[in-house]
């Protein structure tokens, strides 16, 4: 404390802190950020204007899951605790929101149905009734639904935050994987007990709520607005002293406690804030689905978030959004994978995947080693081929390559192992690669040439293919790039323009020269003063 106040008084130091490198282009960066936001809004406007319901839904879902992943990232990435109970928090927020904004006709249906577990009192729990009770009856119309929805979201967030507080308390005693299991257990306890007799009057048991207004969850503007709000809060938190304390806990708990970080306070704070936004995401998710049912809050949800975080970059907000986009793409646009195709087609597809995997393995090894490398164009060739093949693959036939075209585009992958800089370097694992490529070619040929033979005539449904794709993606990323695609780095304009922010500017060099020059600076600079006083 004392040091910094002395630094503040030194005019030279004040001058220096004003022009630190990362603060140089603040105005420009702000303008660029605003501009990018504007471009993004225009793009959203354009996409929603296309009128594709699927695209709009995917965009809205991206924003909703973005809220959830960014909040989960606060625990998993910034605080460094593996939390597996996010679906539980979302369930609490989602059910609270659904109960508070359910329209009257849906409530009447619940009361009328004989199997419902809800009572008169719990059915009456709504924001409209609250407004009526406190004399704001004018706000219960359809045109003010948005106000009630926002209030319900906030209430759902608060309920989830309460649960986060309860889950956060064991985190004071436990560490690492034990804590992960406890959070998982809490998530499951929440889900399993939601249908029991005690909570059924509030959750309507296994039936759940049907007819939740989906004007907000399916609207790109509301969801992206709430995502922007979440991003603002979470990034402010990340760069505040709280966020830095959390990061220090992630790096080393014992050391950060020794440095005076209050472990209990920061961990519980992280859990509560994260759970709050998870509750908000749950409310939006319920609205996106149009109903609240327990099947929609399985552990699978947390698994998807985990894939998004790990794939994008644990601890990086931009990376997490990137990962979320990836997961949403597979979930919303991967449905061709789960349809029924002829077995010969599946064999062709498996053959292509095996060949690509073998070639990718070779390329990875070649680039991961020092010394002789493949030329850069091979990577470009590989990528272009990959895109063309996947677009023209038997399961995703976006472009019609035909059989001959397919085989022609596979040739580069098969030639790869025989290039001089690859073949000699992959001796240790050569047989894996050759086995992959060989089995791939055989499968492809069986599928492509003999569609009429015996058991190849049947069809096969790719049930669960999307889950398999995401799980394999996660395993591969964990093995080859454990920090995720972007690691812990955040996007910044300086990075985009290749500014070297770690290099001192000319002005800083001048100041350094002044500080270290005894002729000009008799006192020997701030550092010298400090050491004298300490001694």
């Amino acid at each position: 404390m004392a040091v910094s106040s002395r630094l503040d008084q030194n005019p030279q130091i004040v001058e220096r802190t004003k022009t630190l490198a990362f603060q140089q282009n603040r105005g420009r960066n702000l303008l660029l950020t605003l501009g990018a936001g504007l471009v993004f809004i225009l793009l959203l406007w354009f996409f929603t204007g296309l009128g594709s319901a699927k695209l709009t839904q995917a965009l809205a879902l991206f924003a909703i899951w973005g809220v959830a992943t960014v909040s989960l990232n606060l625990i998993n990435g910034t605080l460094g605790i593996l939390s597996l109970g996010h679906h539980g928090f979302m369930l609490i927020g989602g059910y609270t929101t659904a109960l508070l904004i359910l329209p009257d006709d849906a409530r009447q249906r619940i009361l009328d149905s004989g199997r419902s577990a809800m009572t008169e009192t719990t059915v009456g729990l709504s924001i409209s009734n609250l407004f009526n009770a406190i004399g704001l009856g004018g706000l219960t119309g359809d045109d003010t639904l948005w106000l009630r929805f926002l209030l319900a979201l906030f209430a759902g967030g608060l309920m989830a935050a309460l649960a986060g507080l309860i889950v956060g308390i064991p985190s004071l005693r436990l560490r690492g994987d034990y804590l992960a299991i406890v959070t998982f257990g809490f998530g499951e306890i929440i889900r399993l007990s939601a249908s029991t007799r005690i909570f059924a009057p509030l959750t309507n048991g296994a039936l759940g709520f049907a007819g939740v207004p989906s004007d907000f969850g399916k609207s790109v503007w509301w969801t992206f607005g709430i995502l922007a709000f979440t991003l603002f809060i979470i990034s402010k938190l990340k760069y505040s002293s709280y966020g830095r304390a959390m990061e220090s806990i992630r790096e080393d708990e014992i050391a950060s406690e020794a440095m005076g970080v209050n472990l209990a306070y920061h961990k519980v704070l992280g859990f509560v804030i994260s759970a709050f936004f998870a509750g908000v995401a749950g409310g939006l998710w319920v609205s996106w689905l149009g109903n609240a049912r327990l099947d929609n809050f399985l552990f699978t949800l947390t698994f998807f978030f985990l894939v998004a975080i790990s794939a994008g970059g644990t601890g990086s907000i931009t990376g997490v959004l990137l990962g979320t986009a990836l997961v949403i793409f597979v979930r919303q646009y991967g449905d061709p994978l789960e349809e029924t195709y002829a077995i010969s087609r599946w064999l062709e597809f498996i053959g292509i995947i095996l060949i690509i995997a073998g070639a990718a393995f070779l390329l990875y090894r070649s680039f991961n080693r020092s010394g002789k490398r493949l030329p850069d164009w091979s990577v470009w060739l590989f990528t272009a081929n990959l895109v063309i093949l996947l677009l023209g693959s038997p399961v995703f036939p976006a472009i019609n390559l035909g059989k001959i075209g397919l085989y022609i585009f596979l040739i580069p992958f098969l030639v790869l192992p025989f290039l001089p800089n690859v073949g000699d370097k992959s001796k240790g694992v050569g047989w894996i690669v050759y086995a992959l490529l060989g089995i791939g070619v055989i499968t492809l040929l069986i599928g492509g040439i003999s569609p009429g033979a015996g058991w190849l005539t049947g069809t096969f449904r790719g049930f669960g293919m999307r889950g398999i794709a995401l799980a394999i993606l996660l395993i591969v990323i964990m093995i080859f790039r454990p920090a995720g695609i972007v690691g812990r780095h955040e996007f910044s304009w300086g990075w985009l323009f290749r500014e070297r922010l770690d290099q001192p500017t000319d002005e800083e060099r001048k100041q350094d020269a002044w500080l270290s020059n005894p002729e000009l600076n008799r006192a020997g600079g701030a550092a010298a003063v400090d050491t004298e006083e300490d001694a």
Partner: protein
Amino acid sequence: MAVSSVSRAKRKVNWLPWLLLLGIAVIIIGRIIYLYSLDPRFNTAFFLRAFIESVKLGSLYALIALGYTMVYGIIRLINFAHGEVFMVGAFMTYFFFTFTPYPWFISAIYAAIIAYGSMRVLEFFRGSMRDPLVLAAGGVIFIGLTVLVSSITFPFWLALICSMIFTGVLGIVIDRVAYFPLRTAPRNSLLITAIAVSFLLQNLGLLVFTNRQTPFRPDTPLIQPLQLTVGNGQVFSNWLLLAIPLITAILVVVLTLFVNRTRLGKAMRASAQDAETAQMMGVSVNKVIATTFLLGSMLAAAGGAMWGLNFGSLNQPAILGILPGIKAFSAAVIGGIGSLPGAVIGAIIIGFLENFTTAIFPKTATFQGVTEFKDTFAFILLIIVLLVRPSGIVGEDLSEKV
């Protein structure tokens, strides 16, 4: 930034969880005494049956929990995929006794996998894959099984053994492909990978096995009815009531003998104590880990097959393994993770909690809650135990060193 004001001079005893545990125990014991003395329906036979049923359920959990505890003991990984290994074991047994005889090419693939697994098992005793006995056994098993699987319908016990070997090999493969590259990675990466493997196996199960509930009724004498007269009451059940605890006991004894009496078992214990030092002393730690996965997965497969027998049907693959798996994990932690007897003790405790409480609190309106909360007991007990005594009932202290 707030400064921590916690003083660590004296460890405070956290009395609340102990009180909770004591309260639960008092409620259960009081209820038993109340029922036994006042209600004629709850006689000795009833309690005997409830007791054995609880041991039965507990022994099913124990078979899964042993795999968790062995793997955790050696590589400090919560093998999230173990519940799914259990699922694969159950479904493989089902496929073996239901759909055999298979076409020859599928038989050959199965036979190849099982022959390889048997060779790996024999290798532990003979020392090398190239040993003539190992090679001969592999060849005989391969040819014999190909002929067998493509010609006869498997009885339950043969299906169980084949499924155990198949699942054991699956365990080795999972370790080799997913966990081996991450031996030196941070623990969280390993745990996330385990979750991913679990999700992968769930979806592969949906893809390969089935996507709906499956009846599991093999033609075996174990499901014949059994009637016992005890005191003035009678126990109606089937032979599984006795067979499942018995088979579990045999498997656990064999496992304990293996761990305590063989060279490889000694290597396992050494690796569990300190893998690095064990490696320096000439123990092949990777081989030990493979053995661990093999044994754990084989036990889980046995558990899966008996789970199917016990409940008469298998849930769909995506959810079959989750709850038993995570409850068995809770059992392993409650007993003290890393310890074999601890896993069995914890599993039987959970079996009792689930079965005994539902038996003594019948489904009346007053006690509905107890029955419905059955699935959460394991988690609640897990959390209490972790707060009171993270090392479990018989476990050693696992606190982190600075």
